[in-house]
């Protein structure tokens, strides 16, 4: 499904944030990336849909190398990759419905989008997804009137509107309280399972990763230092990923 080969990224020459990442993400299940702040988790996720330009390597998605695409080809590839953001990244002054329909902008011509002429099927789907994420009746609320948890529900619904073949989630729960975090992860995991969408998510919270992930990637210093099922994450491994040990007890 997604195959990263020799992926490297340096924002400043000589200081790589990612060095030689090689990993394949299967066509289903939740893959969680854990690691301390600044180890390149976010950069890795953002390289996949080219919000960040990789310095080297290949990003094979559905057989095409994302790293080499540009212009229209890149936009068409992005349509198949949904993304959920840490700070939700909703368009604050648009309504919930408009934010959801943003997920269809890759398929609707700008002229139609400008006049809010979306296909009826897209609008029907948006209402279904609003029900699914528990925001029925919120369609005409402006995004800036919602709470954090509600915003992230809209963020997830927007990503799912794309009918994505891969869902990226960049710290989707880091701005939320623990209870809401679990609810959001449950929602995302549930949608991923029922729609058969593979998820690549990065997170700080080890417990949350253990609870929801089928597979965990541990990153330290721009490299993957752990790759395995959550059950294999023991204290020794966590020490290797995060460094130090005082925090474990």
């Amino acid at each position: 499904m997604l195959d990263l080969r020799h992926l490297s990224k340096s924002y400043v020459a000589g200081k790589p944030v990612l060095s030689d990442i090689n990993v394949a993400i299967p066509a289903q299940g939740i893959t969680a990336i854990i690691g301390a702040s600044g180890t390149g988790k976010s950069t890795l996720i953002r390289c996949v849909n080219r919000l960040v330009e990789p310095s080297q390597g290949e990003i094979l998605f559905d057989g095409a190398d994302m790293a080499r695409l540009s212009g229209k080809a890149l936009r068409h590839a992005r349509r198949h990759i949904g993304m959920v953001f840490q700070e939700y990244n909703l368009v604050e002054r648009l309504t919930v419905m408009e934010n959801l329909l943003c997920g269809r902008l890759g398929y609707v011509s700008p002229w139609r989008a400008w006049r809010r002429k979306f296909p009826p099927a897209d609008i029907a789907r948006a209402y279904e997804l609003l029900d699914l994420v528990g925001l029925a009746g919120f369609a005409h609320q402006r995004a800036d009137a919602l709470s954090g948890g509600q915003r992230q529900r809209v963020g997830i619904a927007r990503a799912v509107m794309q009918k994505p073949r891969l869902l990226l989630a960049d710290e989707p729960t880091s701005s939320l309280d623990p209870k809401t975090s679990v609810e959001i992860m449950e929602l995302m995991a549930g949608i991923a399972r029922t729609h058969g969408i593979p998820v690549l998510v990065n997170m700080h919270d080890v417990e949350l990763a253990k609870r929801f992930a089928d597979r965990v990637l541990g990153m330290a210093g721009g490299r993957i230092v752990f790759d395995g099922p959550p059950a294999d994450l023991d204290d020794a491994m966590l020490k290797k990923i995060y460094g130090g040990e005082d925090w474990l007890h």
Partner: protein
Amino acid sequence: MSTAPAIREDAFRRRAWPRVAAVALFVYVVYACAQLDVSWERVHAGLDNAARFFSRLFPPNFTRSDLLIKGLTESLEIAVLASTLGIGLALPIGLAAARNLMPAWISWPARFVIVAARSLHPVIVAIIFVKAVGFGALAGILALTVASIGFIGKLFTEAIEEISDKQVEAIRATGAPFPSVLAYGVLPQVFSRFIGFATYQLDSNLRNSTMVGIVGAGGIGGTLFAAFQRFDYDYVCAILISIIALIMIGELFATAIRAIFIENATFADLFRRGEAMRHVRHSEDD
């Protein structure tokens, strides 16, 4: 008694240059007054003259109202046409000048156009257009269009450069084409500010449209200037009162537009004062 704490560095950074600048400004003000012969005797002599002038202003003389109304109507037309044309042109130019969305080879020429449009005062631009296209309203319309491009273009560019990249990033990540990114990621973030700029510009154009007539570019200004030169001060007063009334009506109109677009007020809210209006205002962030 406790021992005195160890002396650390000063808690505030004290800089010398703001004080030097303040002293320099004071010295320059004194020098400039001396240069321009601004003195109390001069002000006193001026006040006597002013008293005579003001006494001749009243009562205002509205007898030549047909000329007055014709001039005001022409000013209003100049202001509305120049605002429509200028704001319409400022939108794409301001967008092109935004460095966070456009490559340098587009943004620099657009910035040059905006700076050029801003660099000359509307009166000077009006004189140029009077020479170019002849006396009349067309010169005024063109002059104020240029002024609108400069003002709206600059503010619109700055508003776009201050938007949140996160919202734009999210739209780009969906594979949306660039015009759709603008429509959904950029414009919603700047729309209310743009309405604010546009109404302010309409207000400003209305004021300037009463003035470009002085240099022959149409509107009430020509009538006003002629009245001054004939010492028809009572007629001057009538014109000034009419201009003030026109500007105030324009101000009310601009406030209503802002309330509708920015504060989501309904038409009925506009005629309701006090609590209801305040409620509408507080339900918004800006």
